[in-house]
């Protein structure tokens, strides 16, 4: 995509030992989420242990980036210098359709004034920050 949703200058994600496969996946247009190798259930955000069966052996498996808006917020007041000239922007909490209903946070692409609808179907859009320091990718959302 041509231009990131938010103005540049917000902190960039720095992968950790716990979530590196996720960030590597986004770089390659794949959504990889943490999954227990024993009980085969997804969990998110990443944890050191499967909170269901207490297994430490966890993988990152690909998930189709489809979901519904579980909740949302339209932010107006800038709390970071990078956002001073941003104007309103929309954050959505998306419940994924194919990953045991785990939720991920992202932005809803499009006019920030557009109606926000809990329950609406959305699809993921990979947003690459090739010139990030380090380079990274985010997962954004748009109405289906």
């Amino acid at each position, binding site marked *: 995509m041509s231009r990131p949703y*938010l103005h540049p200058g*917000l*902190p*960039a*994600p*720095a*992968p*950790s030992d*716990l*979530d590196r496969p996720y*960030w590597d996946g986004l770089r390659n247009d794949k959504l990889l989420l943490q999954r227990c190798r024993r009980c085969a259930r997804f*969990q*998110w*955000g*990443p*944890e050191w242990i499967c*909170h269901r069966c207490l297994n430490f052996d966890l993988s990152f498996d690909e998930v189709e980036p489809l979901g519904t808006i*579980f*909740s*949302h*917020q*339209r*932010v*107006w*007041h800038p*709390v*970071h*210098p990078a*956002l001073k000239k*941003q104007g*309103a*922007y929309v*954050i959505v*909490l998306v419940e994924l359709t194919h990953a045991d209903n*785990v*939720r*991920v*946070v*992202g*932005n809803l692409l499009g006019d920030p004034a557009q109606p926000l609808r*809990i329950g609406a179907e959305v699809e993921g859009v990979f947003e690459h920050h090739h010139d990030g*320091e*380090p380079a*990274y990718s*985010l997962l954004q959302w748009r109405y289906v």
Partner: protein
Amino acid sequence: MTLRSRTAVVGVGETAYYKRGQAPDAEFKLALEAIVSACADAGIHPRDIDGFASFSNDRNDPSQLAAALGCRELRFANMQWGGGGGGGSAAIGNAAAAIMSGMAECVVVFRALAQGQYGRFGQGAQAPTVSGNLAHTVPYGLLSPAHMFAMKYRRFMYEFGVEQSALRAIALACYEHAQANPRAVMHGRPLDAATYDESRWIVEPWHLYDCCLENDGAAAMILVAGERARDFPHLPCYVLSAVAGSQFRAGAPVHNTPDYATSNFKTLVPRLYQMARLGPADIDVLQSYENFTGGVLMSIVEHGLCKAGEVNEFFVPDNLTAPDGQLPLNTSGGNLAECYMHGLGLNIEAVRQIRRTSTAQVANAEVSMVISGPMVTPVSSCIFGSEATL
């Protein structure tokens, strides 16, 4: 055996409350001033304090406070984990537990904040990178406490059809009470419905007036064993109950807690009332922590004071204002209009109601409840009672 009536608050103290960054004194000095003031109120010498309890990673170390105050002996130095104001009532419970168990005899609960001296709340991460759970929210502009909680309340609004007027009623009640309270930062600055409606959004569904102040100052309260309460200058104010915690996986990372649209009190409330041997109908006056008005609304529902399906009818200013409202709320002005001392000011106001010294006094207030820090984890609540409740 529970905490019920085993301890009492016998002294309260506060510094003057300042706008954020405008305190003339260092944070440690503010803490000392509030503690000395609470001791004077109780008619004791600070040397008699043998325990300290605080919350939210207060920076003022009990050993240093005890040294500065000349305390004869330090027996209890306690910090309730968790951020925001979720630990306010928990710290009182911890102090009470220490006293009733014989670990200490005279415990001060305190909180001091000087944001000029230290960093400011409500500002996003300024570092070039973020890692861990923050990496999954901050790059999307989810930065401040308002952002962290707005989607919980939005979901609650959606599930129960809550209208904006319910939040407005909370803000109006707080500001009305602040007009009677000369200590309040917003004393002399009344708020009306039109001003609320026209105020800018911070983050939808929260206007400017739905968000707490940021202040400098300090607050403290002195607890001793309940059987000593009559030996002090003021009307006794007993701790009837104090509980803390949160539900299953409230701390699940990146907004994945199973029960999302909650202020996190559902599992605490049965324990709170059971310990107090009281129910929602017995609550005469309520102080409920406003980080954001949406948290107040959800916490009031979760404490059984209003049904979720009836919030639009219940949350009107007349119901929430002293002296005649059905549920007088935040009678000092609260975090919205008196001062944001991470909510300890709310606990002090709850004591004033039992002492009959509030500037928005509820007639015959015998049972006075405090809800601390909705939507964070752990949260806490406590109930104070007059002698008539024993």
